[in-house]
C-alpha cells in the first residue's frame, strides 16, 4: 500500500503529539494515540474501499494543506465580518473559524452566559473539556467509530476544538442554536474540528449548522460531530453547505438515539466543491424515530456524496429517509444509504428513498439504496429513481408563456420542495425556499457572509 500521502501526517503527529496534548485535555487526549495507530495502519479511504467507491479521499488529502496544530488565531472577527442580523431566524449564534471555536467577541461570551442561565452548556469543546472533563469524557468518542472511515481516526488524532452543546434533562432552549463554520485564511488550509452535542432526557435542541468559506484559497475541512439523544429527547439538526468550488468538505455525523427520542437531520448542499457527508445513526432505544433527509444541487464539476447508515438495534423504531439530487453540467452525485434491521428488531418501520434529476447528459448520479433485514415482522421499503425534468410539464408551462429557462427553474425548485418542507422552523423553511430558488437562478449570494441566512 502506498502511504506517501499519509506518511507526512504520521510524521507530524509523532513530532507534535506531545505539544497537541499539552494544549488539549484528558478526554480528547485519551483517544489520540489509538486513533493515529488505526489511521497509520490503513491510511485514507480510496475508491477500493467499499464505502468509498465514488469518492477518493486519499486524493483529496494529497494536496499539501497546512495543518493548524498550534491553533493560532487568525485576525478575523466573524461577528463584524458577517453582519448577521438575526431577525427572521432568531438564534443563539456562534462561529467556528477554520477549526477554532470563536470566543474573541463579547457577543459569543454573552450568548454562552445567556444559555448558562437556562442550564445549557455551550461553547468551545476545548474549553468545556477543561471545565467539565467528566461530562465530556462520558461521551467523547463513544459514538464516532473509525472502523469504516479512517478520516474519523484522523480527526480524533488531530482535532482540538469545535462546538459543544449540552442540554440538560427536560430543558427546551428558547430558540435555535446556530453554528457557522467558516473557512477563512490567507493561505490554503486544512481544518480538523470536532463537535459534541448532548441532549438529555426530555430535552429539545434545534441546531442549525452552516458551512461557508471565503473564495480565495483551497480548503479541506474534516469535521466530526457526535450527538447523544436521551429518552424522549428531540434533536432537529439542519445542515447547510454554501461554500466554494475550492473547498473539500468531509463531514461525519454520529448519532445515538435512546428510547422515544426524535431526531430530524436535514442536510442541504446548496453550493460546494467536493463534499462527502457521512451520517451514522444508532437507534438504541425502542420507539425512537429518525427523519433523515437531504438535497443537493450540483453544477460545474461539483462532487456530492451522501453516505448514510442507520442501525435499528432494537424493535419498534422508525426511520424515514429521503435524499434528492438535482445535477447539472458535469457534476457528480452519489448516494449510498443503508438501513440495517437487526435480528429481533421487530415492528421496525424503515423507508428509504433517493430521487434524482440529472439535467444534462454530462452529469452523473450513482445511487445505492439498501436495506438489510434480519427480523421478520417489519415494514420496510427502499427505492431510487434517476430521471430528467418532465418534458410534458415543461411544454405545458411554455405553452402558457413561461420561458423555458424559467419553467426548468420552477420544476427544479418544485423537485426540491418536499425536502425543504421537512424543516420545522418556519422562518428557516421560508428562507431556504428562497435560497434554493436563488441558487437555481444562478443568483447565489457568493456567501462569504452569512447575512443571507439571518436577514
Amino acid at each position, binding site marked *: 500500500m502506498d502511504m506517501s500521502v499519509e506518511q507526512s501526517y504520521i510524521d507530524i503527529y509523532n513530532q507534535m503529539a506531545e505539544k497537541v496534548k499539552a494544549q488539549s485535555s484528558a478526554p480528547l487526549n485519551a483517544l489520540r494515540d489509538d486513533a493515529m495507530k488505526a489511521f497509520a495502519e490503513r491510511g485514507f479511504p480510496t475508491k477500493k474501499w467499499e464505502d468509498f467507491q465514488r469518492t477518493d479521499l486519499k486524493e483529496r488529502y494529497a494536496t499539501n494543506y497546512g495543518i493548524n496544530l498550534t491553533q493560532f488565531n487568525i485576525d478575523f472577527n466573524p461577528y463584524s465580518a458577517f453582519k448577521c442580523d438575526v431577525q427572521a431566524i432568531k438564534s443563539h449564534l456562534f462561529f467556528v473559524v477554520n477549526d477554532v471555536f470563536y470566543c474573541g467577541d463579547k457577543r459569543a461570551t454573552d450568548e454562552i452566559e445567556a444559555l448558562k442561565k437556562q442550564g445549557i452548556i455551550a461553547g468551545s469543546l476545548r474549553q468545556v473539556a477543561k471545565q467539565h472533563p467528566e461530562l465530556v469524557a462520558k461521551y467523547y468518542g463513544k459514538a464516532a467509530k473509525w472502523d469504516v472511515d479512517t478520516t474519523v481516526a484522523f480527526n480524533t488524532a488531530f482535532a482540538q476544538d469545535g462546538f459543544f452543546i449540552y442540554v440538560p434533562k427536560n430543558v427546551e432552549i428558547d430558540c435555535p442554536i446556530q453554528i457557522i463554520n467558516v473557512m477563512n485564511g490567507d493561505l490554503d488550509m486544512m481544518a480538523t474540528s470536532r463537535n459534541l452535542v448532548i441532549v438529555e432526557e426530555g430535552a429539545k435542541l434545534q441546531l442549525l449548522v452552516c458551512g461557508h468559506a471565503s473564495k480565495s484559497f483551497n480548503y479541506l475541512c474534516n469535521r466530526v460531530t457526535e450527538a447523544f439523544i436521551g429518552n424522549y429527547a428531540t434533536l432537529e439538526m439542519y445542515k447547510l453547505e454554501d461554500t466554494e468550488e475550492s473547498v473539500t468538505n468531509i463531514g461525519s455525523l454520529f448519532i445515538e438515539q435512546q428510547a422515544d427520542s426524535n431526531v430530524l437531520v436535514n442536510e442541504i448542499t446548496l453550493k460546494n466543491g467536493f463534499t462527502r457527508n457521512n451520517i451514522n445513526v444508532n437507534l438504541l432505544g425502542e420507539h425512537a424515530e429518525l427523519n433523515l433527509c437531504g438535497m443537493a444541487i450540483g453544477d460545474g464539476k461539483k462532487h456530492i456524496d451522501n453516505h448514510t447508515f442507520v442501525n435499528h438495534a432494537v424493535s419498534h423504531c422508525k426511520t424515514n429517509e429521503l435524499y434528492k439530487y438535482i445535477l447539472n453540467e458535469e457534476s457528480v452525485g452519489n448516494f449510498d444509504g443503508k438501513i440495517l434491521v437487526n435480528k429481533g428488531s421487530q415492528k421496525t418501520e424503515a423507508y428509504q428513498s433517493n430521487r434524482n434529476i440529472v439535467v444534462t447528459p454530462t452529469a452523473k448520479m450513482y445511487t445505492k439504496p439498501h436495506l438489510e433485514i434480519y427480523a421478520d415482522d417489519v415494514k420496510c421499503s427502499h427505492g431510487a429513481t434517476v430521471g430528467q425534468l418532465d418534458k410534458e410539464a415543461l*411544454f405545458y408551462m*411554455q*405553452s*402558457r408563456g*413561461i420561458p423555458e429557462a424559467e*419553467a426548468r427553474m420552477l*420544476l427544479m425548485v*418544485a423537485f426540491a420542495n418536499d425536502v425543504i418542507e421537512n424543516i420545522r422552523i418556519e422562518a428557516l423553511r421560508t428562507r431556504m425556499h428562497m435560497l434554493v430558488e436563488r441558487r437555481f437562478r444562478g443568483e447565489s449570494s457568493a456567501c462569504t457572509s452569512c447575512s443571507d441566512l439571518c436577514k
Partner: protein
Amino acid sequence: MGLLEIKNLHANIGDKEILKGVDLTINPGEVHAIMGPNGSGKSTLSAVLTGNPAYTVTEGSVMFNGKNLLEMAPEDRAREGMFLSFQYPVEIPGVSMVNFIRTAVNEKRKYQGQPALSATDFLKMMRERKDLVELDNKLANRSVNEGFSGGEKKRNEIFQMAMLEPKLSILDETDSGLDIDALRIVAKGVNHLRSSENASIVITHYQRLLDYIVPDVVHVLYKGRIVKTEGRELVAELEEKGYDWIKRELGDL
C-alpha cells in the same frame, strides 16, 4: 388578413407524416369547429400550432397576427395570444397553481411591455376568473392539476384561458371525460370569454360540446387534410350519419 392563416401545412411525428397539407384561415370573432374520426390529425394540428417539440413541420406556413408562427418558441406563441386547452392537462407536483399562473400572467405582461401585476390586483383577477368556471378556492393553493378530478382539470384549463386572455384559443377535446354539468360550466366560461377580438378552434368528436359552444364554421379533418368545410348545420349531419359518407365521397369506402 386573418388572425391565423395556415397554408399547405405538413407535419411529422418521427418519420410518420400526420398532417398532409392543411389550409385554414380564421378571422377574429369566429369560432371554428374541427371534427373528424380518430387519428385524422386533429390533436397534431393543435400540437403543431402551439410548438410541441415532438412534431416537425416539413412544409407549409402559418401566420399568426401577421407573424411567422413556426419560427416562434412555444412561450412566444403563447405570449402572442395562442392558447391550448390540453386534452390531457399535465400534473406538475410541487408547483403551486398560484405561482404558476402568476408567472404566466406576468411573463405575458412583460412581453407586452406592461409592469407585473401587484399581488392585490393579481389575487382580485384570480378570484373573478376562478368564479367564472366555479373552480374551488382550495385548488388555487394546490400543485398544478395534481389530484384534480377530470372535470377540475378541464375547468382549470378554461380558468387559465380566462387569466391569459388569448387571441386564439384551441380547445382540444375539452369535452372528453366531462359530465354534463362540467361541460356546461366549461362552455359557459368559453362563451363568456368570446368576443369580436378573439377566436376559437374547438376540436371535438361529438355534437355535445357544440350544442353549447356554437361554431360559425365546421371543418372535417381526415387523413391529415381538411376535406369538408361548411356551416354549423354540418354538425348535426355528422352526428346523424357519422363519417362514412364523407369517406365515401372521397372514394375511401
